[in-house]
């Protein structure tokens, strides 16, 4: 599962918020990310099963998820 963000700034911010609660991710620019708005950044969740938890953490941290893509 990949979470998509509108910019690299928000992707890195999201990555750090998630790392703080031990949700590990990798920064990516896969085609799925580009498809959303024509270039953006994604975070690939190491454990896709933690998507709901990750979304909750990001919402609390004020980071909007622009879209999601299945790997």
């Amino acid at each position, binding site marked *: 599962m990949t979470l998509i963000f*509108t*910019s*690299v*700034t*928000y*992707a*890195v*911010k999201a990555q*750090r918020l998630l790392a703080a609660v031990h949700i590990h991710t990798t*920064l*990516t*620019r*896969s085609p799925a990310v580009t498809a959303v*708005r*024509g*270039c*953006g*950044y994604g975070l690939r969740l190491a454990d896709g099963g933690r998507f709901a938890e990750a979304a909750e953490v990001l919402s609390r941290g004020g980071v909007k998820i622009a879209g999601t893509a299945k790997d």
Partner: protein
Amino acid sequence: MERVYLDNAATSFPKSDGVFAAMKAAFYGCGNGGRGGYGIAAAAAETVYDCRERLSALFGTVPENVVLCSGATLALNMAIKGLAAEKCTVLCSVLEHNAVLRPLYALSAAGRIRLKFFVPSFESGDDTASAFEKALTSDVKLAVFTHASNVCGMTLPAERLCRLASAHGVRTVVDCAQTAGHIPIDMSALGADVICIAGHKGIGGPMGTGALLVHPKRGLWLSTLVEGGTGSASREHFMPRLLPERLEAGTANITGIAGLSAAALELSINPEREKELRGRVVSGLKEIKNVRLYGEGADVPYMPLVLFNVGKEPSETVSERLSERGICVRGGLHCAPLAHSALGTGRYGGVRVSLGKANTEADCDALLSAVEEISASV
């Protein structure tokens, strides 16, 4: 001849080894941040975000409200041109640097704004606040003022001015080029909508770095000054709506940003130490015959800058004679002609001494003996 560097208001010197090491690491280890997902591009993105995080922690905002750029001049241009509404009146002080004055003159000459000045008092912060409030007429929509004069070091009561402006519905841009890194600045306490900082002065970063920082809780809409690639939303015709990318077109200065980030991390703010050294210079200069000091009001705080002249000697002549003795200071008008007019030094300018973190009592004493020698010969 030993060099005594006293021109820290132009740029801090020397820079630290830690700053250089961070720049070197970025030079060899970073690609273009925000343009790819591979290792060295991701490393660059991390480096840039580190810098945003450190500056936001230092100035009390959030990382995404830190717009990185080439210096306070570009930051001020972006802030002024991004916030000045068409046909509004913009209020600024007579102490401003040309980085504020010239963008405002350009907007005014193009018929886009009306420009209005207020005159800060060199004697009292209360009088400055009164002058500012009187000038806040209903047509004023934006106020731009310096946190501290780059000519004489006098600080303005910025918190009070921001509060007054806010009460009148006026947006504020504060030029913190001479205060950032010298005194603690918290955007929430200050109340400014935007502050503009230089990375290479009080903070100790490399030249070619600076930032525009937006208040953490105010949703500001800034028009763009420069448009281009951001590595995001590429199909859209216009710049992204969100900061910081909205104001950051093109490839970032990653090595510079890495240096600025290292400088922000190792920064230690010690205004008392700088005040002590400034006091030593001021009291020493007061004892020297033919020396005249400017802007030395008792009731206002000063940054570690001192402006003086020796007799009727042009300031550039005195600066040159100090340079012959290894002392680096700056004469002339310091890109702030109206400030010099207000201080009575509009014709020949003044000799500016600006202290930094590396300066010592011995540096102050070396300056004083050199000025004494020059004074005795005029």
